[in-house]
């Protein structure tokens, strides 16, 4: 027993809001599937699409976001393989985005990951920054027999270089999108509902940044593997009051864990961070590293996929002050869309599309402020959008003095993940960090 106590440096306990998180997620997928039964509408689109906008069509409009759906399939190895083979049989290349191939396969097979046939959407509401975004739903629209499709281009350059004209381009497309929504659904658009949804989304993404900032504490109250289950609501339905309330609860619980030094990983003696989506079918690598006392405290991916950050008065990185807190008026449709566009443009994970140096700077900052000892870079063959520039990020982090271990894999296609060799590479990396197996 003495040895065990030595290995377990910190006390730990499960998260209390874990069950609530699970319930919200299940309800989301059920809502989408059952929307029509209550006369409601179904839309599909990417996790980054402006999901608050369709809320103006009514409370019975439910979305299904594609990346989390593709990841859900990836987690189910048998279904994933079936979907990928269906996409390949149709003629699509194996090296395309693996979420996209999982999703297309699911449509082609007419199999919903949660059972039954794939619930046909009424329309597509997408946004575009990565090459695959718009093409993904162009194909979906075709496969579904030509369902209406609207997509907003958000690739207008990095946040710090934004101009009126760039914001105007986005806002203009949003206005066009609302008119289009009214036209294809025959419904009257309610600006009040839009305003509320936009505010909810801003609240949620700010709360998430606050939660991630709490993870600067040693020991870390959250580990990255758990965060994957906690951030998911941000990519599902961040514009709803239930999700705002969930993140408030989570924030309070994490604060409490920090105050009482409750660790996510009781063996924590080395803090790591990763990059890009993990290979979903191989999350065991996180537990494996814990056997060395190494915990991944997060990544720019888990923190910045949705969280919105800014410089704090003390120079550190933390949650961005919301426009509501700043007293910005959000009373009209145009004001809501403008606030929405401005806020979203600050997304950390939108910056590297214009220059890897912007991402390198954020990663180095994260590594310093969160007291990281080493970095694992997932060279993700399944996602070109998040792995562009990753080799330059590696060089930049090495230059900053952080040990870096790249490993190739695929978030959604396990055929491209070499289990044994990645584990062996982790052993090597742990060895270079001076860590030995604790159990």
């Amino acid at each position, binding site marked *: 027993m003495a040895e065990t106590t030595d290995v377990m440096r910190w006390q730990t306990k499960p998260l209390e809001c874990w069950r609530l998180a699970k319930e919200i997620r299940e309800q989301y997928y059920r809502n989408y599937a059952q929307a029509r039964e209550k006369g409601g509408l179904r839309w599909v689109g990417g996790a980054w699409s402006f999901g608050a906008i369709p809320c103006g069509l009514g409370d019975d409009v439910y979305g299904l976001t594609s990346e989390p759906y593709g990841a859900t399939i990836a987690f189910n190895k048998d279904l994933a393989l079936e979907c990928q083979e269906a996409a390949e049989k149709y003629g699509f290349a194996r090296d395309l985005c693996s979420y996209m191939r999982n999703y297309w396969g699911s449509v082609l097979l007419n199999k919903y990951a949660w059972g039954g046939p794939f619930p046909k959407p009424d329309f597509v509401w997408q946004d575009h920054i990565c090459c695959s975004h718009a093409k993904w739903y162009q194909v979906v629209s075709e496969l579904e027999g030509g369902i209406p499709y609207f997509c907003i281009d958000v690739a207008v350059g990095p946040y710090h270089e934004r101009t009126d004209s*760039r914001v105007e381009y986005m806002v203009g497309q949003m206005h066009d999108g609302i008119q289009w929504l009214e036209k294809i659904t025959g419904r009257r658009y309610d600006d009040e509902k839009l305003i509320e949804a936009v505010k909810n989304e801003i609240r949620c993404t700010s709360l998430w940044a606050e939660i991630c900032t709490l993870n600067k504490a040693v020991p870390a109250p959250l580990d990255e593997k758990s965060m994957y289950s906690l951030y998911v609501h941000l990519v599902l339905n961040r514009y709803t009051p239930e999700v705002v309330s969930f993140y408030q609860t989570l924030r309070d619980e994490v604060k409490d864990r920090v105050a009482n030094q409750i660790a996510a990983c009781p063996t924590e003696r080395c803090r790591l961070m990763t990059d890009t989506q993990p290979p979903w079918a191989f999350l065991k690598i996180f537990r494996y590293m814990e056997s060395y006392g190494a915990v991944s405290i997060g990544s720019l991916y888990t923190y910045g996929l949705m969280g919105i950050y800014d410089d704090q008065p003390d120079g550190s990185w933390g949650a961005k002050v919301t426009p509501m807190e700043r007293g910005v008026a959000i009373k009209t449709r145009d004001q809501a869309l403008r606030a929405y566009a401005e806020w979203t443009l600050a997304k950390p994970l939108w910056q590297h599309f214009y220059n890897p140096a912007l991402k390198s700077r954020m990663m180095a900052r994260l590594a310093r402020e969160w007291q990281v000892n080493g970095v694992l870079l997932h060279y993700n063959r399944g996602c070109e959008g998040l792995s562009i520039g990753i*080799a330059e990020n590696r060089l930049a982090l090495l230059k900053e003095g952080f040990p870096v271990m790249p490993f190739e894999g695929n978030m959604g296609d396990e055929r491209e993940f070499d289990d044994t060799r990645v584990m062996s590479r982790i052993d090597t990396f742990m060895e270079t960090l001076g860590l030995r197996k604790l159990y």
Partner: protein
Amino acid sequence: MSPFQKFQEWHQNRHQYAQEWKARTGGKVLGYFCTYVPEEILYAADVLPVRILGSHEPEDVTEPHIFAMFCPFCRDCLAQGLKGRFDYLDGIMISQSCLHIRQAFWSWQLHIPTSFSYYLPMPHHVQSPRAQDYLRGELAQFKGAVEGWTGRTLTDADLDRGMEIMNTNRRLMKQVYELRKAPNPPLVGADAMEMVLSSQMTDKREHNQELAALLEKLPQQKRDGDPPVRLMIIGSEDDDVAFIKMAESLGAVFVSDDHCTGTRYFWNEALPQEDRLMAIAQRYLDRTPCPTKDWPERRRFQQILRLAKEYGVQGALLIQQKFCDPHESDIPQLARLLKENGIPSYFLEFDMTVPLGPFRTRVEAFLETLREEDLF
């Protein structure tokens, strides 16, 4: 002597050409990474735009900079920079298109300093009515940056000159392409490819003169023998002349293409209007799109079908740089559409260098199936 000799020389000696141009004119040379770059504005400023392309040699210098799942074209381009072959460049720029090629631009910017580098956030939603004002704004900002760099103000007359140079080049190349409609065309695909490639490497005023001379001679050129099988080549960036020559040695001739080293580059002109920058913006929004900008409608497919019909295409080779996601998301649907329209197609994946032996077998087999269809 081939009437295309000058184009071939330019294509083969691109670096020498640019260096001599620089010495001769004292002007600035700018390397660009994507054909969405508004060359009109560069010509207006008397800057020579040259396209950065690869050299089709195996390389081992880009691995630290670009993750291996990105296309060989972007790696080949970067390799040229890292090997110092473009040391004469005064500036570089890219117009936002696919994710792959912008990595070559970034690593170049990070590791090979030049006095000017510019990322133009070209809109993707080119079909949106909002794209015009936005792109016009971006062109104004870019024009300002070029003015700052060159130290001269660009007037409407300068922009008119830039547009005229570009439009003339486009018009003349289109006229040359017209001749490919003949049953036994006076030029082969390799000639056409080198003509377009050299236009991306030389001063278009010189290129225009050469094109005018070519148009004098070319219609008189007669080719003997049986008419070859008429092919169209469609896909991502392609400057693999060796492949084209190999395929054309098998009794085929390429009569048209959909490449950014071909029709997508030059097919449409900038139509004059009072607001010059708007005229230029409109031109790039209306050009045959790269697949990454071709949504929600598939407008490129319609252009491909038009060309295939006008040029009497019997079969199409669909080629793609390995890992080119935008083309990969088009190819299955494009192959179906061509088939519905009676045009068989065959798919080939291109790497930095292509194994000509195995590819020859594939092309031969495809041509055999096309000839069989002729018989019945």
